[in-house]
C-alpha cells in the first residue's frame, strides 16, 4: 500500500471525491494555482480545471456563504479556511445558516459542505496560527465535527465528510501533517512514511463519521483524545508506565459514546486531553458525559489536561502546549486518586 503524509492523504481524498463526483468543488484562499499554503490542494486545479478548484478573495464569510449557496444548488463544496484561527468571519454563515438550513426548511434545502481547516499548535504560530476551536462548533446543532489523527483516517474521514449530506467541520491538526508529533519538540519527528497509519489505500474508501478508534488497549485508565493529543497521550502513558486505554475520538460530533462508556466502565478512571483552552473546551462535554454515564464505575475524578485559559502565546509555546509531561502528571494523579 502506498505511504502518504497527511497532506498527501487529504489531497488524495479530494482527488478521489472530485474524480467520482462532478459536483465536488474545492476552493479557498491560495487553493487554486498555488495549491494551498500547506499544499493540500496541489495539482487539483490542473487536473480538474479552474472552475472546480479555484482561488477565492480573502473573505471567509464569502467562501462559506457561497459554498452554502452552491450546496443549495446541488454541488458538494469542500472549502478551505487557511487556518482555523481565521474561521470566525464565517462563523455566522456556519452557525446561523449552514447548520440550520435543513432543519428550518424541513429538508427543502440541504447543506452538504465540508469546511477544512488546519488547526492546533506546535509550530510557533502564535495566537493566530495555533488555535483549536472545535468546541465552538460542537455546541452548534446541525454540524458534524471531525478531527483526524493520521493519514489513513484523514483520507477516509474526508471522503466520508464530502459524501455526508450535512455540513462537516473538518479540523486538520497541522502539527501532524508530516508525522506523528508527541509533544517532545526537542526530538526529531518520525515521518509518516515510517508509520503504519501512513499506509493509505490509493482509491476510494471511507472511515465512517461517528466512530472512535481504540489506539491502545489498557486496563488501568481511559484517555480520551483526538488529533495531536493522541500521540502525546501514547507517549505519556508509555513514559509513566501506565496501562492506559487510549481512545482516538476522530469524530467529536456525533460522538461515539458507546466506545467511551465501555472503556471507562472497564478502567474506572478517565483523563481527557485537548489542546484547546480548558474552560468550556470539548473536554468539559466529555467529562460531563463520562461522569453521567459511568458515575458508579468511576474511582477517581475525571481529569482534564488542556491548553491554559490564555490566548496562545508565541514564545511560551512549550509552556502552553499540553505535552507528555503535563499529561503524564494527570495520569499519575488520576491513578493515585
Amino acid at each position, binding site marked *: 500500500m502506498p505511504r502518504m503524509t497527511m497532506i498527501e492523504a487529504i489531497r488524495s481524498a479530494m482527488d478521489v471525491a472530485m474524480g467520482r463526483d462532478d459536483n465536488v468543488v474545492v476552493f479557498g484562499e491560495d487553493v487554486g494555482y498555488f495549491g494551498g499554503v500547506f499544499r493540500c490542494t496541489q495539482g487539483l486545479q490542473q487536473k480538474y480545471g479552474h472552475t472546480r478548484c479555484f482561488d477565492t478573495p480573502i473573505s471567509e*464569510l464569502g467562501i462559506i*456563504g457561497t459554498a452554502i449557496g452552491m450546496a*443549495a444548488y446541488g*454541488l458538494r463544496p469542500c472549502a478551505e479556511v487557511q487556518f482555523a484561527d481565521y474561521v470566525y468571519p464565517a462563523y455566522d454563515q456556519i452557525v446561523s*445558516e449552514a447548520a440550520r438550513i*435543513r*432543519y428550518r426548511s*424541513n429538508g427543502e434545502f440541504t447543506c452538504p459542505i465540508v469546511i477544512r481547516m488546519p488547526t492546533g499548535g506546535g509550530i510557533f504560530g502564535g495566537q493566530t496560527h495555533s488555535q483549536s476551536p472545535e468546541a465552538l462548533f460542537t455546541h452548534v446543532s446541525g454540524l458534524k465535527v471531525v478531527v483526524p489523527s493520521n493519514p489513513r483516517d484523514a483520507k477516509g474521514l474526508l471522503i466520508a465528510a464530502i459524501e455526508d449530506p*450535512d455540513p462537516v467541520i473538518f479540523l486538520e491538526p497541522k502539527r501532524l501533517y508530516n508525522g506523528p508529533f508527541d509533544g517532545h519538540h526537542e526530538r526529531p519527528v518520525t515521518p509518516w512514511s515510517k508509520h503504519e497509519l501512513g499506509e493509505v489505500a490509493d482509491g476510494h474508501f471511507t472511515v465512517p463519521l461517528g466512530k472512535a478508534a481504540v489506539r491502545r488497549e489498557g486496563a488501568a485508565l481511559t484517555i480520551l483524545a483526538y488529533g495531536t493529543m493522541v500521540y502525546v497521550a501514547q507517549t505519556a502513558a508509555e513514559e509513566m508506565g501506565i496501562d492506559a486505554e487510549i481512545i482516538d475520538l476522530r469524530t467529536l460530533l456525533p460522538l461515539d459514546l458507546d466506545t467511551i462508556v465501555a472503556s471507562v466502565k472497564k478502567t474506572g478512571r478517565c483523563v481527557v486531553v485537548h489542546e484547546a483552552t480548558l474552560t468550556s473546551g470539548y473536554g468539559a462535554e466529555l467529562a460531563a458525559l463520562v461522569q453521567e454515564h459511568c458515575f458508579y464505575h468511576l474511582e477517581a475524578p475525571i481529569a482534564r489536561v488542556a491548553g491554559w485559559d490564555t490566548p496562545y502565546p508565541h514564545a511560551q509555546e512549550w509552556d502552553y502546549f499540553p505535552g507528555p509531561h503535563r499529561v503524564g502528571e494527570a495520569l499519575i494523579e488520576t491513578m493515585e486518586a
Partner: protein
Amino acid sequence: MASKTRLSLHVPEPEVRPGDQPDFSDVVIPKAGSVDRPPVDVDPREIRDLAYSIIRVLNRQGEAVGPWAGTLTDEELAQGLRHMMLLRAFDARMQTAQRQGKTSFYMQHMGEEAVSCAFRKALEPGDMNFPTYRQAGLLIAGDYPMVDMMNQIYSNESDPLKGRQLPVLYASKEHGFFSVSGNLGTQFVQAVGWAMASAIKNDTKIAAGWIGDGSTAESDFHAALVFASTYRAPVVLNIVNNQWAISTFQGIARGGSGTFAARGLGFGLPTLRVDGNDYLAVHAVAKWAVERARRNLGPTLVEYVTYRVGAHSTSDDPSAYRPKEESEAWPLGDPVIRLKNHLIRRGLWTDERHKQAEAEILDSVISAQKEAEKHGTLHSGGRPSPRDMFEGVYETMPPHLRRQRQKAGV
C-alpha cells in the same frame, strides 16, 4: 499645516420626526420615461449615472412612457394587479390573525407589493430567489398555494416547515424560494454561490439575491458584491430601499453615498435604480437584469426605491419614530393604485371591476384561511408534533438526539 479644528461627530438624522410635517422635497424624482435603456451588454462604466437616477415608466397620468415601457402584455398587467391585491389582502388577514393570537408574529408588505410581484414575472422555472421576509410576492406571483403560506404562519399540523420556523420565513425549492433566514444579509452571498454553481455546471438557471436598505450595512452584502464581481456570477442582486430599517431611517445605512445603488459602482457592476412602486418599471428592470445574467454577462445590482407603509412587523409601532402621515406624503404613490389607474386609462379595467375583484380576492383569501385553520393555529387545533422538533437536524438522527428524544418521551 492643518489648523486644529475641534472635531465633532456627525450623526445623520431624518428631516422629520413624529409631530413634524412630512417632507420629501429632497427626494429628486426624475420624470417617468426620462431615463435611457441601455443594451444589456453595455459596458457598466457607461451607465454609472443610472445608480443616481430612478427608472420610471408610469407617469402621473397613468401612462406607460419611455424606453423601459412595453415589457408586459395586457393580460400580464391585469394579472400583476391581481397579485398585488392578493398580497395586500393576504397581509391584512394575517395581520388580524396575529392580533387574534393565531400566530406569534407577522410582517406585511404594504406599499412594496410591486417589487416582489413584478420581479417574479421576470424569472423562469428553475431560477432561485434568496429572499428576505418581505418578498412573499415571489410566492404569490409564482402561484404557491396560499393555504400553505398560512399553514406556515400558523405553525399548524400542515405547516410545510413542521412548526420549526418563525412565521413568514417560508421555503420552497419548487417555487424557487430559498429558505428565508431571520438573520439579515446572510442570503445575499448565498445567492451568489448558487449562481456560481449554475455557471460551474454550465446550466441556464440564474439566482436573485434580496436585501433591505438597512441590511446593506451587513458584511454579507460586501462578500456578495466581491464574489459576484470576481466570478461574474449570473445573479441579480436586489436592494429593497423602503426608507426604513425598523426605527432607523435609511440615512444611517447610506451615509454619504448618495444612493444604495452607488455601492455597486465600486465593483464595476451595472447598477440600476428603479421606482419600486411602479409595477411596469420593476418588471422592465428585472427583465433587463435577468437577461444579462442569463446571457452570462454577469451580475447586476438593482435598488428599488419604495416605502414601508406599515409597521416593521407586528412587534413594531412606527408612530414612535416617524410622522403618521409620512406614507401619504411619499412621492412615488401606491403601487396598487398606480397600476389600477394605468389599466383604467388603457381601458382594461374599471373602478367597478376593481371593487368586484377586491371582493373576490378577499373571498379567496378567507376561504384559504378557513382551510388553513382546519389544520390549527399556533395555540389551538392541530399542531406539529414534538417529534418533528428532533427530526431534520441531520439527515440521519445521531445517537445523542435519539437519546434526547427518548428522554422527552416523544
